[in-house]
């Protein structure tokens, strides 16, 4: 593995600044009485200021756990940080004191969670929930925070904010609650917004609205975004960089266009093939081809490439040895993949027998 392509010594951003976030070999486990779930197994990547990273992968691939673990938000126990570093603005969040970490949470890193119904406190008005981080991190008084909360609700286009600020979560629709979550996540103008399946619970039109809104707010505030989803279409619409995760590992990452046009991991290819071709007219859209098989049992992860058992391109080496995440020959700069096989060659051999 050459130093240049190693993800743990990333290239600085085009502006020459150090990256905003640098995850180094993060490992997270959940232990119960008789087994250990290896949820995240050595994830490394960097995120520059203002960059939007889309993270995709089937459910259970460690997307949520790895971002929660960065801010030490997983339940511990049973969870534990089994190794690695998470450098945010040069400081390791995993070893920061609790008090310092709390300043980062909700302050310079905002969170938007999946399932806006259960993620809002049912017995507190939405206004008070939006005001909380303002009072905590920006030291605003109650009146100023309330005024700002109304502005934030306006910003995420909740109609009639001044009146509805005193209502409770159950009085809002799913899409509106998601907007409230976004207003909360953005309230302190974070440098990084992490959105975990923020649109999954919404119907397609509301989903498109919310994504448009985040893009707009991103232009306005200039924050970096980590957008977790299992919908590749959403990633194409919002992200600069895409990162494909599987079994607690990064299988492939790189600029969205490059990865989508020239996938190097069979897992990415599988995900792309399960996506309906939205450019084709309705009725002629290619049938979805789901990836066969199921993700591995993370209590006993396979020794080699975790996707090998489901991969028809797998080589014998895939079953015994883990492939490193490196730039494959001929791939665009910044395009990394973890694969022992040469996917473009294998596909070409398939189509021209």
């Amino acid at each position: 593995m050459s130093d240049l392509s190693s993800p743990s010594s990333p290239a600085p951003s085009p502006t020459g600044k150090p990256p905003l976030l640098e995850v180094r070999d993060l490992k997270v486990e959940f232990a119960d009485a008789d087994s250990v779930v290896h949820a995240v197994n050595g994830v490394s990547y960097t995120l520059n200021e203002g960059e939007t990273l889309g993270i995709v992968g089937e459910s259970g691939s460690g997307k949520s756990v790895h971002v929660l673990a960065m801010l030490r938000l997983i339940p511990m126990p049973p969870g534990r940080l089994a190794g690695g570093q998470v450098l945010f603005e040069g400081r390791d969040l995993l070893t920061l004191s609790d008090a310092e970490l709390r300043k980062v949470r909700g302050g310079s890193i905002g969170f938007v969670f999946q399932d806006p119904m259960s993620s809002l406190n049912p017995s507190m008005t939405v206004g008070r929930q939006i005001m909380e981080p303002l009072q905590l991190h920006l030291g605003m008084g109650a009146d100023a925070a309330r005024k700002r909360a109304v502005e934030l609700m306006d910003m995420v286009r909740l109609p009639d904010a001044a009146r509805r600020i005193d209502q409770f979560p159950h009085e809002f629709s799913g899409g509106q609650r998601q907007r409230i979550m976004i207003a909360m996540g953005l309230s302190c103008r974070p440098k990084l917004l992490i959105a975990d399946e923020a649109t999954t619970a919404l119907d397609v039109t509301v989903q498109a609205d919310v994504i448009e809104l985040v893009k707009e707010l991103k232009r306005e505030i200039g924050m970096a975004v980590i957008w977790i989803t299992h919908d590749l279409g959403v990633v194409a619409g919002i992200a600069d960089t895409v990162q494909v995760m599987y079994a607690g590992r990064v299988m492939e990452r790189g600029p969205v266009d490059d990865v989508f046009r020239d996938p190097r991991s069979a897992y990415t290819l599988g995900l792309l093939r399960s996506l309906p071709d939205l450019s084709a007219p309705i009725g002629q859209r290619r049938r979805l081809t789901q990836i066969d098989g199921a993700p591995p049992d993370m209590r006993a992860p396979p020794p080699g490439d975790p996707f090998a058992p489901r991969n028809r391109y797998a080589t014998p080496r895939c079953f015994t040895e883990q492939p490193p995440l490196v730039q494959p020959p001929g791939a665009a700069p910044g395009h990394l993949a973890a694969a022992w096989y040469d996917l473009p060659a294998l596909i070409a051999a398939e189509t021209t027998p």
Partner: protein
Amino acid sequence: MLRFFLKRLATIIPTVILASMIIFALQQLLPGDPAIALSGEEKDPEVVAFIREKYHLNDPLPVRYAYWIGGVLHGDMGESIRLQQPVAQLIVAKFPVTLQLAVMAMAIAVLIGVPMGVLSAVYNGKAMDYTANVIALWGLSTPNFWLGIMLILLFSVQLGWLPASGYVPPTENLWENLRAMILPAFVLGNSIAAVMMRHTRAAMLQVLSSDYVRTARAKGLSPRAVIVRHCLRNASVPVITLGALEFGALLSGALLTEQVFSIPGFGKLMVDAVFNRDYAVVQGVVLCTATTYILLNLIADLAYFLVNPKLRRS
């Protein structure tokens, strides 16, 4: 809010009437004849007949119910056959004693049980949790009369700090009254505290693992702020339910504890009345207890109402 309250109040009236009917009907199942019980050693048939006539014991059940409930509505619950005293007067005399004991016991139970439950949930699996659970187990498995006797032995006999028994009305001497009531209140509160701790712990554990608590932590709130602002209120519903139930049970009279500490409350009144077939007293006390139960339920409903905004708006 007002509409909800009035609606609940409207359902209470038929409930109380139904309860009074059931009380009256079940009463008739008690074995023995009050007229014979009362007529003395000789059981003179003439005396028995006279007593039957005087207390309407010969009339059919519905007529007797009508006599009784009509009286109750005018504040007349009949007369104790044994004590020759109006039942209403007896209840007015004994109820405050039981009420004071119940309030004190409940306060002790809440003050011990709720914080212990919260702490053991927050420190789930740690030493604090085990300690609280051991204390709760002890509280649950200690019979009240035994704990009462032990406490009397310690604080009254050995140390001489508190009176061993004897009730002093608070109007006479508040300090002496509290000194006499604190041990029985602690004995009663102790076992309820244990149940309360368990319920609080379970409710808190559920709330602590909820998504909105994760959201609160992700905002950067301190553990203390997360618990105080986001957990307690949401965890309070099952605790309120339990509190209302336990309080109702306390108000029906804690017989053994009252006996051990010689407290002249509902428990003693009730047992004496049952053994002497003092129908009017039994009916009066049970009706009073049942009504209190129903009212407590209403209060618990109102508390849910304040805790849960979903109810408030609909």
